[in-house]
């Protein structure tokens, strides 16, 4: 039965980080909608502006505020919230709820936790309590001991009796700081790290179940003790590789019914013992040798796995868990999929679902690629097929890592052996290669600890490759397509063109059909507009005839450079289409996102985003239009090929034409246009050999920005300061040649970088926002701290920026959105690039200003004018919004934390306030940068920055901070009246030095601006890495330091107010 609440709060999960991605936007959004349906008043809090849940219509009040207990308490009090949903915002929300409950704050505010209760959180999070609970109900857990010191850890190993042991920190997400210790030395190292990361300074030392199989169960329970399983999942990679890092298949394929029921029954016992009302995820290790199992972990909330299970089955776990939390029982909740039945059933599926993680190793070339108990992947793809092979091949080509399927890799037998035993992201490709080389599936399975069942599936693919190579007949083609081969792979093997394969398929009538995801294996008639392709008899997707249909190409997996922002844009695109009476069709393959919620679009196709797969959907839909500008680079890259393939059909690419998009992307064409428009650009050139590059660089003058011409999104982009560095770059990072020249740009030192997002309808231009970067130009705009509106630019410069946006948008015939990146130096404006598509900052601007840019963009594409919305020119806002980036350095040992032209951040937060410094401070807090209010600051800056740093140092000193500085900086500061404690540089090998002081906790903030010359950047690596591990905030620019000082002042004043988005937007209007 429904319980009464005055107002309910949903807490989001904050920025996208490794281990916590878009899945909580999906669950939080579903939760809010679910509550709204029941007529509850709702409040949502999240610090991440790039989410659908922070749209003002998701909840009655939406707050974009730092996710900190104190802040949340303020909002609870301000809004009169009497119930907080604890389980919708991942570990972040769960931790906050547990903190508020433990401190008695909730009780004081007359507010209760709704859904997962504090005791359930404690029982599942506190290892010792968890173990006790499991022992009480007779369920086996690995032998283990919770410890708080390294000595206790050694004792624990004695009790367990053998190495290796697992080290798991309590209360962290994504397994941060954990590891496998094979000996005492490793134990000490991992424990030290784990204890530091754990919120309660506790780690668990545990019996190893490495090599056992890993299974997961998604369970739901209501207040009436009704329990159901939504889905079970099998990890292809054995225990030892985090489930977030493992390839996962649903449902379990290799468990007999009896064993499945044993685990199912155990999972139900667990959720009952923890007294969870809502959803929970239970993980098992299963010994294939004797059928023994161990309970490994329980997550008493919706999770990445539950998002996957929702998408894999069609069962909306977050929506149902929300209803359960407010008192409904499963049989009272209607099943919207069938429309006739209720939520009290267990989904049965009739396909194979595969999830494959997406790792950021293409961006972080120095990172250790080995997979283990710590998550390193930033996102994932899901694919659906009627066979394992079909699902796998679709999944692999969804990854967008340049593979079309089980692509070939060059490896020696020794490398194969090493890779099979110590997996990296490449293992599945190496396995296939081993089979191609004649390794037996037994050998491969044995070394990799995979069930041979799956290895044989890979062998089937390899065998099919051989048959294709022997000659392409219609029969073989049909079988290969049924097995999931892409046209591209078939073309490669047969040495023909992809278009020829497509033509042959069509002449043989080998075209995909679309089957429905309906939760019930077709037992009941369902209305779900959720489809996947396969090669079978009849298609179930029935686009309505006569209705206008537009396909939006989605953004694919979350990776560095392409985050949740593009999913936000796609969802807004869908809404805009629907508002205009057009059927909105989404193609995407990311199970974490809102766009792949079947409730969002008119039809959802869970498919790879390749030319072939997208064209198939367009043809099946008989679509009128396609939008390629909203899914980030994924969809933009398809535009030209799609246009070519769609020539002569009724389907049009909506918005800016691919040719105009090409003008923006092609440097020569773009430079010419800028010259015509009289817009300055940094000097540049294209080098086809090292000698040419060197000549150009010398002509332009160092430093220069270099990048290869053939990769996009800032990959392999660097600033080089000398010929030697250029040589190193050419030798190591890229191979320069006739076909692959490198692009060289003048690097404008100490220029201010500006991002502009605008909409153009062909006649008018509306500048949605102008954002000033805090860091100097040269730091990737995706990593930069940005402020809206600009905080240092002169009005004249802003006027000129608006004029430039106007000129460029009209000249490029933009229909829809455009993003500009500009640099300002000495009040001169330089064009860096124009992106004729939705940019990463669109959601940020929309949240800050209240103008939904993405929606306006789509409506303009459909033919509306900006006049229709009363939008023209540029209008500033009366408050400040600061975007701060969040970085994965902690999770990725070996990565340098210095910001460069290559993007490194995984997510973003927004700080918003009427006061500039308060907005900055909120952004810092939200991003997890623990700015100190007292203690020590270490300052070491280059000569150019010395004059400007004096005020910073003085301010800090006045606030009572101890200033530590290296000799040069120290002398300079003393000369200007700021007392410092001099410390030695690392290479001077004397104490005190910064590293020692950091370890001792004497340094709480570091201001280090590297000198702009060769090698200097690398010298600070040890210190930066240590700062990352000790979580000491690290500032690398003077503007950043000034901002930090402003923020610290705010922090010390302790006068932080919270305000809902509507209140901010009313300020605008």
């Amino acid at each position: 039965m429904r319980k009464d609440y005055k107002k309910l709060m949903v807490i989001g999960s904050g920025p996208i980080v490794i281990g916590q991605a878009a899945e909580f936007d999906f669950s939080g959004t579903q939760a809010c909608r679910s509550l709204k349906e029941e007529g509850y008043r709702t409040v949502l809090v999240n610090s991440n502006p790039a989410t659908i849940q922070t749209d003002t219509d998701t909840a009655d009040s939406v707050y974009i505020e730092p996710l900190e207990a104190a802040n949340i308490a303020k909002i609870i009090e301000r809004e009169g919230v009497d119930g907080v949903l604890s389980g919708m915002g991942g570990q972040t929300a769960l931790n906050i709820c547990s903190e508020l409950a433990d401190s008695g704050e909730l009780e004081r505010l007359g507010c209760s936790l709704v859904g997962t209760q504090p005791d359930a959180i404690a029982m599942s999070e506190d290892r010792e309590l968890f173990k006790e609970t499991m022992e009480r109900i007779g369920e086996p857990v690995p032998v283990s001991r919770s410890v708080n010191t390294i000595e206790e850890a050694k004792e624990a190993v004695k009790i367990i009796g053998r190495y290796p042991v697992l080290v798991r920190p309590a209360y962290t997400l994504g397994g941060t700081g954990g590891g496998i210790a094979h000996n005492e030395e490793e134990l000490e190292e991992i424990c030290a790290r784990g204890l530091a990361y754990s919120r309660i300074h506790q780690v668990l030392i545990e019996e190893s179940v490495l090599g056992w199989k890993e299974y997961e169960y998604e369970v739901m329970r209501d207040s009436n003790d009704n329990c159901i399983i939504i889905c079970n999942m099998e990890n292809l990679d054995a225990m030892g590789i985090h489930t977030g890092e493992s390839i996962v298949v649903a449902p379990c394929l290799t468990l007999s019914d009896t064993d499945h029921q044993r685990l199912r029954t155990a999972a139900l016992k667990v959720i009952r013992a923890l007294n969870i009302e809502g959803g929970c995820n239970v993980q098992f290790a299963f010994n294939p040798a004797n059928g023994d199992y161990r309970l490994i972990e329980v997550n008493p909330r919706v999770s990445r796995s539950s998002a996957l299970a929702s998408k894999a089955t069609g069962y909306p776990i977050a929506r149902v868990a929300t209803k359960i939390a407010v008192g409904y029982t499963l049989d009272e909740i209607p099943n919207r999929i069938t429309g006739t039945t209720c939520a009290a059933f267990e989904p049965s599926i009739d396909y194979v679902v595969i999830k494959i993680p997406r790792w950021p190793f293409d961006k972080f070339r120095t990172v250790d690629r080995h997979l283990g108990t710590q998550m390193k992947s930033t996102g994932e793809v899901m694919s659906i097929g009627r066979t394992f092979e079909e699902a796998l091949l679709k999944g692999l080509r969804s990854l967008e890592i340049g593979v079309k399927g089980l692509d070939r890799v060059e490896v020696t037998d020794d490398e194969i052996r090493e890779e099979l035993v110590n997996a990296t992201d490449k293992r599945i490709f190496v396995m296939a290669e081993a089979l191609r080389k004649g390794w037996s599936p037994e050998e491969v399975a044995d070394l990799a600890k995979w069930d041979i069942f799956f290895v044989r599936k890979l062998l089937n693919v390899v065998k099919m490759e051989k048959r294709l190579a022997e000659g392409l007949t219609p029969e073989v083609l049909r079988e290969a397509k049924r097995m999931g081969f892409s046209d591209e792979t078939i073309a490669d093997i047969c040495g023909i063109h992809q278009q020829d394969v497509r033509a042959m398929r069509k002449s043989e009538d080998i075209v995909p059909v679309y089957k429905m995801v309906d939760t019930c294996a077709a037992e009941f008639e369902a209305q779900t507009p959720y489809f996947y392709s396969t090669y079978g008899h009849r298609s179930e997707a029935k686009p309505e005839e006569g209705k206008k249909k537009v396909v939006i190409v989605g953004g694919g997996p979350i990776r560095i450079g392409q985050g949740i922002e593009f999913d936000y844009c796609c969802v807004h695109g869908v809404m805009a289409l629907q508002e205009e009476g057009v059927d909105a069709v989404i193609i995407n393959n990311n199970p974490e996102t809102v766009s792949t919620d079947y409730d969002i679009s008119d039809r959802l196709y869970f498919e790879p985003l390749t030319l072939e797969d997208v064209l198939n959907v367009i043809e099946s839909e008989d679509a009128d239009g396609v939008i390629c500008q909203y899914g980030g680079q994924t969809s933009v890259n398809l535009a030209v090929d799609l246009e070519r393939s769609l020539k002569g059909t009724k389907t049009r690419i909506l918005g800016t034409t691919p040719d105009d998009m090409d003008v923006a992307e092609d440097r020569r064409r773009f430079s010419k246009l800028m010259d015509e428009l009289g817009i300055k650009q940094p000097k540049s050139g294209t080098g086809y050999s090292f000698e040419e590059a060197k000549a150009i660089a010398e002509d332009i003058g160092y430093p220069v920005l270099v990048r290869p011409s053939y990769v996009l999104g800032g990959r392999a982009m660097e600033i080089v300061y000398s010929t030697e560095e250029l040589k190193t770059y050419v030798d190591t990072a890229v191979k320069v040649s006739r076909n692959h020249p490198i692009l060289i740009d003048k690097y404008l030192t100490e220029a201010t970088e500006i991002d502009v997002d605008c909409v153009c309808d062909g006649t008018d231009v509306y500048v949605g926002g102008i954002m000033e970067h805090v860091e100097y130009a040269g730091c990737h705009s995706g990593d930069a701290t940005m402020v809206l509106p600009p905080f240092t630019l002169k009005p004249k410069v802003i006027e000129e920026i608006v004029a430039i946006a106007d000129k460029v948008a009209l000249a490029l015939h933009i229909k829809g959105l455009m993003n500009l990146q500009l640099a300002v130096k000495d009040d001169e404006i330089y064009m860096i690039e124009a992106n004729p598509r939705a940019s990463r900052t669109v959601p940020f601007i929309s949240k800050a200003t209240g103008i939904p840019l993405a929606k306006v963009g789509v409506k303009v594409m459909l033919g509306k004018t900006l006049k229709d919305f009363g939008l023209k020119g540029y209008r500033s806002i009366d408050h400040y919004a600061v975007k701060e980036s969040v970085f994965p350095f902690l999770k990725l040992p070996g990565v340098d934390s210095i910001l460069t032209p290559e993007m490194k951040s995984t997510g973003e937060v927004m700080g918003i306030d009427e006061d500039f410094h308060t907005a900055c401070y909120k952004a810092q807090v939200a991003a997890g940068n623990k700015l100190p209010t007292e203690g020590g600051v270490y300052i070491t800056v280059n000569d150019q920055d010395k004059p400007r740093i004096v005020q910073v140092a003085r301010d800090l000193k006045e606030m009572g901070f101890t200033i530590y500085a290296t000799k040069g900086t120290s002398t300079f500061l003393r000369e200007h009246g700021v007392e410092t404690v001099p410390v030695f540089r690392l290479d001077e090998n004397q104490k005190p030095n910064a590293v020692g002081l950091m370890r001792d906790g004497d340094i709480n903030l570091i201001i280090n601006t590297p000198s702009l010359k060769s090698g200097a950047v690398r010298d600070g690596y040890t210190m930066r890495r240590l700062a990352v591990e000790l979580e000491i905030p690290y500032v690398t620019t003077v503007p950043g330091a000034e901002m930090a000082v402003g923020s610290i002042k705010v922090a010390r004043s302790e006068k932080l107010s919270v305000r809902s988005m509507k209140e901010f937007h009313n300020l605008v209007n």
Partner: protein
Amino acid sequence: MTRSETLYTVLKSEKSPMAKGYLVLEDGTVFEGETFGAECETDGEVVFTTGMCGYQESLTDPSFRGQILVMTYPLIGNYGVAEEYYQSKAIHTRGLVVREYCKEPSPMYGSRTIDDFLKFYGIPGISGIDTRELVIKIRTGGTVKGAITTDAEGLEETIKRLQRMPAPSESNLVSEVSCKEISSRDNGKDITVGLIDCGTKSGIQRDLNARFNVVTFPYDTPADVIVESGVKGVLISNGPGDPSHPDILKTTVRTVSDLAGQLPMFGICFGSQLIGIAMGGSTYKLKFGHRGCNQPVKCDNRVYITSQNHGFAVDEHSLDGTDLVVNQKNVNDGSVEGVVHKNLPIFTSQYHPEASPGPCDTSYLFDWFGRMIREGKL
């Protein structure tokens, strides 16, 4: 074990194991696929189950007598076939239809293949079928008769034959699967119960053996024989076919009605339907049955996920005026899932508390049975 008695004609020609085959339906639909298992033709009532694993339990479940089983899950045979999962001593389905069968299963349970298993019992299978499309056909048109054949030339003939062929449930299928003799098993328990074997699954025997000593009776055993055997309660098992078949009315239904008031009774599935009829109610054929491991049943305001396999059900309205009360209902379609007698110690479940395959959430019903015997009431 013997090859199950034949309703099938063995093909004379030598065919490769991947021979092209056809699933032919009486409405004229033909699905093309590849045959596996035994090289012979078959026909029967085509039904589907939505259980995602447990194929071996289903194939050996005597309730599937006379039926060609379609698995909605596309990959079947992944974990092979193991002795311990047999629900009887043979395969009872007349054929198996899958999207794909596994030729080299996961070795966790031994490595016997489903192909070998079907061959051993003389049962043909067909793979490569768009089973989802087939299921939608059955869901919309109702259960159909069908055949698996490799005779491409004779498809027309097969369709005509199917149209003329009587439904398998028109014959007394129970007599084909029930035991022929009374047997008893002492498990060292306090209570001895009777099991009327209409085609019982070994899962029921397992759950009874864990709690009682068990005497098993053929389906046509008269009530007095059972009473005289000294058993303290009777479980009427699952079984194939139509519960209102004349042979059943004359035998088992008669026995049940005679036992009422003399011994506590618990009916499972077919047994539940027999109790319904014996107490004055009637049964009807469901459009396409309930077969799977995910059927929600409501009892005492609680929802249980149950394992089901039935094509017939007790008509709720037919119970008006009888002494039976419906106490359990299917949450999806409201059909009768269990009844209790107003005065006598009699209760039933339309679903399978013994699971095998499926969830074990309702195995407590066997405890209820014991309690009812001890206390004389439910």
